[in-house]
């Protein structure tokens, strides 16, 4: 069987995490090509529905990344993101989807290396979990 290449949808805040992802590239730090980045202004913009929609449509993982606590460009959007992500993880558990498929990470504009290691780590973890079971359902149908 071909190696499973997970697809991770990543919502990155413009000010820290998106900049951190850029810095990883500028510094030529290599990480797996598994993520697909959606830029938002702040992690506080992320509605739980965005995450659930991504899983419903077959995302193997979803990453929400924002500024470190206390550093949000809009004061506290990241704390709101944290609460929402916890909520979605509980929902996922209830649905029987591994909550590890959803991650919230803090990545600052100067942490290119951290961004890369988050992607590496998450990709490896999701490889172990296997594809999003929703996709399997479709195959069985």
């Amino acid at each position, binding site marked *: 069987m071909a190696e499973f*290449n997970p*697809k991770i*949808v990543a*919502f990155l805040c*413009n*000010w*820290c995490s*998106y*900049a951190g*992802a*850029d*810095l*990883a*590239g*500028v*510094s*030529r*730090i*290599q*990480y*797996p*090509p598994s993520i*697909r*980045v*959606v*830029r*938002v*202004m*702040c992690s*506080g*913009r*992320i*509605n739980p*529905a*965005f995450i659930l*929609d*991504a899983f419903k*449509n*077959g*995302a193997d993982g979803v990453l929400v990344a924002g*500024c*470190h606590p206390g*550093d949000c*460009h*809009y*004061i*506290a*959007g990241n704390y*709101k993101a944290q609460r*929402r992500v916890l909520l979605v993880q509980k929902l996922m558990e209830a649905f029987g989807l591994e909550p590890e498929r959803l991650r919230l990470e803090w990545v*600052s*504009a*100067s942490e*290119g290396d951290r961004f*890369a290691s988050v992607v590496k780590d998450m990709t490896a973890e999701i490889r172990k979990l296997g594809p999003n079971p929703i996709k399997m359902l479709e195959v069985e149908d």
Partner: protein
Amino acid sequence: MATPKKEIPRVGVFVCHCGINIGGVVKVSEVVEFAKTIPDVAYAEANLYTCSSEGISKIKEAIKKYNLNRVVVASCTPRTHEPLFRNACEEAGLNKYLFEMANIRDQCSWAHMHEPEKATTKAKDLVKMAVAKARLLEPQDEPEIDVTPSALVIGGGISGMTAALSMANQGFNVNIVEREPELGGMLAKLHMLCPNFEDASKALSSIVDAVKSNQKINVLTSSEVEDVKGFIGNFDVTVKKDDKPLKLNQGTIVVATGAENFEPINMYGYKSNENVLTQMQLEKLLKTGDLRKPDKVVMIQCVGAREEKGRQYCSRICCGVAIKNALIIKDLYPETELFIIFRDLQTYGQEYEACYTEAREKGVHFIKYTSSNPPEVSSNSEGKLTIKTYDAFLKEMVELESDLVVLSTPLIPQKDAEKLSKILKVPLGSDGFFFEAHVKLRPIDFATDGIFVCGSAHSPKDISESISQALGVASRAAIPMANKHVRADAITSIINEDLCSGCGTCVRICPYGAIQKNEIGIAQVTSVVCKGCGTCAASCPEKAITMRHFTDDQITAQALAALEG
């Protein structure tokens, strides 16, 4: 609110090779062919450099020729290049919010350099995602915001003072925040300055006097920046002066916090032998006139710099500084023998090269060592120093006795640079110095509007280079202050009054107090106060809030496009 009739999207996609930066990894022609198959894409092409004037004209031509009403550029990052491409759209008569970028360089080709196939697949996905968002984009207006005509300069060294004076002379108020009790920075510790052997204290006192007597400049010493909120034009700054908080409203911010000098603890007998000094300590002895006549002086270059791991950069100033101090000692004590042991001599530019020639003519000896064979310094019981070094020209070991060993050590980032970078939300590079928006195109801007960097805060530099940057920064910062306005982003929230139930969640959650209930209990946004984070939209149980340019539909469409096929 009646929904206006939507026009059918005609998206143009421009895929950039960025020389080999993208084209060397991602198969650009494949991405272009793929783009043509995406619904609503009316036109797609590849460019060698989409951001070149040729690339920009191609976008403008294509908008007209193919009647495009949305544009996607797949290239580098919107954080540096979105303004340029948006302008191109505007010049071709397209509202600049009808533009979207796919980041296939910084977040693709550069990060997956050894996986061309997968990088190409990812680039296609990123283009598909950008098109999915672009199809749903709507034109926006940008409100004008006022700019406070006052600048904050952090750091009162030569760079900060130069920038402050230049801005003050252009008519703007300036606050200088200096951590130490006195202005001056590193310059206050130096004796004479290369390449022209000017007295450092004279150079310093003339600028300090000019700063202190300038009515427009307010100097805050023993002060530090504690907190910065807001955006270009209106930064709310909290400064701690003598442990008391002080609030400042500033239009622009200049980072001029300089650098520290590396202390080579445990290297070449430094600290254990008092005759092993740094160039900085030698400057002090020369300044105070306390240097007794040595028979021999040996200077060692690149101490703690250009390392294989760790501090890899060249500190740029040390070769000039060593030659300067060798010449000064030669002038004071013509009989003293001087040796400079170097790895590669970087006396760049005409003036420094002239100093080097002069040093050779005056009999300063230069010995080249290699990084694999660094010199060794030992001392006998009387404190006499022996230096053993490989001579790369003679290809043999040589041994020197000396009264004094002087270590040339690099400028290194300020200890609290990271703290300041977090307060300002601007990045540091891998070497720990402040990191500009673009190494070639925007060398003194940060990616964040209204914040600039100059001097050795950015990287090791001599004084003339620091001054050039400081003057550059002063004119960059003056642009918005002279215009008195900048165009604010249009990215704010709007409330659909028909859907709002008046629950008040958004009123409570908005970090800026930008949302209030009106007389009938319905939420209302004050657009100029709204900063566009979108937290309200994410929390509205009625889905009554739309974030301009980041609507629920746009974000979802972009995310789901990644998962198709």
